[in-house]
C-alpha cells in the first residue's frame, strides 16, 4: 500500500502548497487593493490615527488636523468654513471619504509611497509619515463671492464655477444648498450616523451641484449651436440667419421667443444679433439645419456625453446631448438647450473656457501642487489640453458674439458696461414654475482670463441675465 500512500502524501502536500500560493496572492499582491476597497471600513476607522496634512486655497487653510489626546494617537479633522468649501474638500468620516479628502487621501495621510521615501528611517521604527499639504487652485475671494451670490439668488439649488482660461484650473466651485463638513467628520460612529441622517433631505445638501448634477442649459447652449454653424461653414457671425417665427416640425406648434424680443427676431438678422437677442426661432431652426449628428459631435468635442475627470476619483456627472435618434421637435428644442439636453455647470464653464482660450479646451483641475512637510514638491499640476473643439477664428467670432450679449443684448440691462462677456440662458423646467437661470462667459471681455458658468434656480419669470449674470460679475471681480 506504500505506492498509493506516497501519492496521497504528495496530494496532501499539494493542497497546502495551493493554499500557500493563494495566501501569497492575497497578502502579497492584493493587499493594497483590499486595503483601499470602498467596502473596507478599516481605512475609515483608522484614519483618525493619521496626522493628515492641510488642504489650502491660496493662504487660507480649508482643512487641518489637530491632536485630540496628549500622546498624539488620534487627530480631529477641522474644516474652515465647511459650508463654503464642501464641494472642494469633501470630508473624512468614519464611513467614507469624499472630494479631495478622498482623491488625495494617501498624500494627505502620509501613506503614499512618495512620502515614505522621505523618511524611511521613521518607517523602520514604525513612525507614521506626516501628511503632505494639498494646495488647491481655488481663489478664496472668488469662492466666497460665488457661494454667497448663489445662496442669495437661488430659490432651490444653484452652482457657480470659475476656470482659469489658459490652464483650466478651477478658481471657484460653489454649490448650494451645502452643509458643514465638520458635522460629519466626527469620530463617534453613532454621532456620524445621526449627522448623515440629518442631511438626508431634498434638495440634497451633500451633492456638488457644480459638477455632480446636470441642468437644462437653456439658451447658453446657443454657444454650441453657433460654434457648430460657423465651424460647419454655414456662415459667420455676420451672416444672416432666418429668425422669423418658427413652428415645431412635428406638432406644428409655435416656438416662442422671449417677451420683448419679437422685434429683433424677425427677418434675417446677422447671427451675432440673433445671439445677442437670444432668438429661439433662429437657433431652433439652425438646429434643424445642422442636424443631430453635427450638434452632438460639436457638444462631444466640448466634453459632453462622458464624465470629465477633475482629479483621480473626482469627476463630473455626464452632460448629455442625445446620440440616439430624436425627432424633429426634440432636435429643435435641443438647439435652445431644452428637454433632451442637460449640462453640468462645470461643462458649460468648459465651453466658455475653450471659447475664451481661442478654441483650446483645457482639462479642469483642482490641485495646484502637493508639498511634503520637508517642502519638497510631490505633485505639480501641469495644464493639459483636452482638444481643440473649434478653430481660433471661430473662437474669436464667438467671443465677439458673447461681448454683444452684454453690450446691447439680453444681459445689457443687468451687467451692461461691465468688463465681462457671456451668454444668458433661461430654461423652463416646468416643475413648480422654476427656471434654470444661466450665465456662461468670460472676463475681462477683451483679454479673457477667467471663464465661468453660473446657474441658479429662480421663480417663474426669473432670467439668467437678472439672476445669474450679477453673481458671475461679482465672482470675476473678486478674482481680480
Amino acid at each position, binding site marked *: 500500500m506504500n505506492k498509493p500512500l506516497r501519492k496521497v502524501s504528495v496530494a496532501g502536500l499539494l*493542497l497546502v502548497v495551493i*493554499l500557500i500560493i493563494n*495566501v501569497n496572492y492575497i497578502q502579497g499582491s492584493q*493587499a493594497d487593493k483590499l486595503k483601499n476597497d470602498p467596502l*473596507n471600513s*478599516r481605512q475609515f476607522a483608522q484614519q483618525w490615527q493619521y496626522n493628515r496634512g492641510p488642504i489650502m486655497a491660496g493662504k487660507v487653510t480649508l482643512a487641518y488636523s489637530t491632536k485630540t489626546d496628549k500622546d498624539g494617537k488620534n487627530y480631529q479633522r477641522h474644516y474652515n468654513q465647511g459650508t463654503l468649501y464642501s464641494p472642494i474638500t469633501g470630508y473624512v468620516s468614519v464611513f467614507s471619504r469624499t472630494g479631495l479628502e478622498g482623491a488625495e487621501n494617501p498624500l494627505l495621510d502620509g501613506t503614499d509611497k512618495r512620502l515614505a521615501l522621505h523618511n524611511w528611517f521613521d518607517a523602520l521604527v514604525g513612525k507614521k509619515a506626516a501628511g503632505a499639504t494639498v494646495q488647491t487652485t481655488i481663489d478664496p475671494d472668488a469662492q466666497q463671492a460665488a457661494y454667497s451670490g448663489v445662496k442669495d439668488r437661488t430659490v432651490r439649488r444653484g452652482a457657480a464655477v470659475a476656470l482659469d482660461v489658459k490652464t483650466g484650473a478651477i478658481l471657484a466651485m460653489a454649490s448650494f444648498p451645502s452643509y458643514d463638513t465638520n458635522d460629519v467628520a466626527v469620530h463617534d460612529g453613532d454621532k456620524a450616523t445621526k449627522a448623515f441622517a440629518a442631511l438626508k433631505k431634498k434638495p440634497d445638501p451633500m451633492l456638488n451641484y457644480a459638477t455632480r448634477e446636470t441642468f437644462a442649459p437653456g439658451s447658453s447652449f446657443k454657444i454650441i449651436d453657433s460654434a457648430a454653424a460657423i465651424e460647419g461653414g454655414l456662415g459667420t457671425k455676420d451672416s444672416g440667419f432666418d429668425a422669423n417665427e418658427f413652428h415645431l416640425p412635428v406638432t406644428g406648434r409655435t416656438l416662442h421667443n422671449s417677451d420683448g424680443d419679437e422685434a429683433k427676431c424677425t427677418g434675417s438678422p446677422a447671427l451675432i444679433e440673433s445671439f445677442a437677442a437670444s432668438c429661439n426661432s433662429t437657433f431652433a431652426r439652425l438646429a434643424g439645419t445642422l442636424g443631430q449628428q453635427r450638434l452632438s459631435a460639436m457638444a462631444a468635442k466640448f466634453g459632453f456625453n462622458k464624465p470629465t475627470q477633475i482629479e483621480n476619483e473626482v469627476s463630473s456627472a455626464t452632460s448629455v446631448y442625445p446620440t440616439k435618434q430624436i425627432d424633429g421637435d426634440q432636435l429643435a428644442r435641443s438647439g435652445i438647450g431644452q428637454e433632451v439636453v442637460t449640462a453640468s455647470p462645470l461643462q458649460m464653464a468648459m465651453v466658455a473656457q475653450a471659447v475664451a482660450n481661442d478654441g483650446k479646451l483645457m482639462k479642469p483641475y483642482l490641485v495646484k501642487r502637493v508639498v511634503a512637510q520637508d517642502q519638497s514638491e510631490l505633485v505639480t499640476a501641469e495644464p493639459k489640453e483636452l482638444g481643440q473643439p473649434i478653430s481660433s477664428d471661430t473662437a474669436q467670432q464667438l467671443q465677439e458674439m458673447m461681448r454683444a450679449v452684454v453690450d446691447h443684448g439680453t444681459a445689457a440691462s443687468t451687467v451692461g458696461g461691465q468688463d465681462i462677456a457671456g451668454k444668458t440662458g433661461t430654461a423652463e423646467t416646468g416643475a413648480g414654475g422654476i427656471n434654470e437661470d444661466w450665465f456662461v462667459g468670460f472676463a475681462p471681455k477683451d483679454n479673457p482670463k477667467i471663464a465661468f458658468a453660473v446657474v441658479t434656480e429662480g421663480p417663474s419669470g426669473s432670467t439668467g441675465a437678472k439672476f445669474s449674470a450679477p453673481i458671475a460679475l461679482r465672482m470675476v471681480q473678486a478674482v481680480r
Partner: protein
Amino acid sequence: MTSAAAEPEVQIATRPRRSAQLAMLIFAMVITIAGFAQVGLARDGTLPTGMYGYGAGLAVLVAISYALIVRFAPYADPLLLPLAVFLNGIGLAMIYRLDLGTSRDVQLARAQGKNPSGIWASAPNQLMWTALSIAAFAATIVLLREIKVLQRYMYTIGAAGLFFLALPGFLPSSISGSLGAKIWIRLGPFSIQPSEFSKLALVAFFAGYLVNKRQALSIVGKKIGPLNLPRARDLGPILVIWALCLGVLALENDFGTAILFFGLFVSMLYIATERFMWVAIGGLLLAGASALTPFIPHVQQRINIWLDPKSYFDGGCQVGNKIINQIGTVAACHAKGGTYVADSGQLMRGLFSLGQGGVLGTGLGQGEPWRTPYSFSDFIFTSFGEELGLTGAMVILLVYALIVQRGMKAALATKDNFSKLFAGGVSFVFALQVFVIVGGVTKLIPLTGLTTPFLAQGGSSLLANWILIAILIRISDTARRPAPQPIQDEGMTQVVSTR
C-alpha cells in the same frame, strides 16, 4: 495487487531522538510565551500577567506529555508533539489577544446597559480545553498500546461515529444550529461538535473495513480505454458513503463535513486497493453531487457569495433581478420589497484583515482582527494573517504540511495494514480539513465552517486533534521501534524480549 514484501523497505531511524524532541518542544514554548509577551507589550506596554499563568500552565502540560512519551513511546516521531504544541500555543496566544479586546468591548456594552450576546473569544476556556485535550492525549498514549485493538471494535466504533455525525441533523435547531449549519450539540454552557470525533471513529472503521475487503475491491471488472472499472457489486460501499455524505449535506447544511468524509473514504479506498479507478469514480460522484447544490439554498448561497462577494457585503437584498448590497438587516430588505439573500460581510472582512496584514503583518496585538466575526474560531487564520502577515501565515501552513508529512511517514513506516491505513487516512483528512477551512476563508473555495486544527477556539476540535496526534505518535513508535533482539545465552530456547 502488490504484496507488501515486494515493496522497498522504508528507511527508519531507530534512535529515540529524545533530545531533538525536547529542543523542539522548548522552541515551541518559547514562541508561544513570546507571543503572549508581545500581546502585552503591544497593548499595555508591560508584560501581561496572563503570560505567566498561561505559559506555566502550558509548560506543565507539555512537560508531562514529554515525560509520558519518553516512558511509553520512546521511539515516537520527535516532531509531532512540538508541532502540535506550537500550533496550540500560538492559537492560545491569539485567543488571549482577542479575548482582551472582546472582554473590553463586552464590559463597555454592559456598562452602557446593553446585553451583549453571542460567543466570545475566551482564553481561560481554551486553556481548560487545552489541559483536557493534553490529558486525553496522555491517556491515549498510555492506554492505547497497540492501535490494532481498534480493529476488533471497528463496527461499534463505526456505528458510534455515524450516530454522532448524524445526531445534530435530527436535533432541533435551537440545540444544533449555528450560522446556517447544524453541526452542534449544545448542552447548557457546553457545545460539542460531534463531527470532529466522528472523523476519527470513521477513519478507524474505514481502515478496519478496507483491510478486510481490499482484495475484493481491487479486482478489476471491465476495462474501458485506460480506465479500469470495478465490478458492479463492489460499487456498494462507495455509493453508501456518498449517499450518507449527501444526507449530511441535506440534514446539516454542512458541505464542508460532507466533502471531508467523502474525500477521506475515497483516499483510503485508493490507498487500500492501489486502484486509481476509485479516485476517478469518486470524482464522478462528487461532480454528480455538485449538480444538486442549486437545490440546497444554504450551499447555493455560499457559492454565490464566493463568486461575487461584493454584491452580498453586509447583506445582499434581491429586488427584482438586482442585488443591492449593504442592506444591513433582513427587515430593511423586506421594507424594500426584496428577498434577503446572503451576507458576505464575514468573508470580505476576513480578506480585508489579510490585506491589512500584508507581508509582515501588523504585529501581534497591534492589528484589528476582531473586526471579522468569529475571528477567534472559523476565521482565526485571517487573524493570524493580519497580525503575523504573509510570513506568519506561511509558517502556519508549513507546520500543517509538516504534521501531514510526519503522519504519512508513520503510515509508510508501519508494517501493520490497519495502522498504515489509519495513519494515511487521518493525515490526509487533516490536510483536507486545513484546505477546506483555510481555502474557504481566503476565498480559494466557497466558505464552509470547519475548525482550523489546533488554532481555532473550541473544545471538540482540540480534543479530537490531540487524540489524533497521540495515535500518530503511537503508530510511529511502533513503526520505529527496533526489531526484538534475540537473547543468545539462553541455550536452545530463544526468549524474545518485547521491550
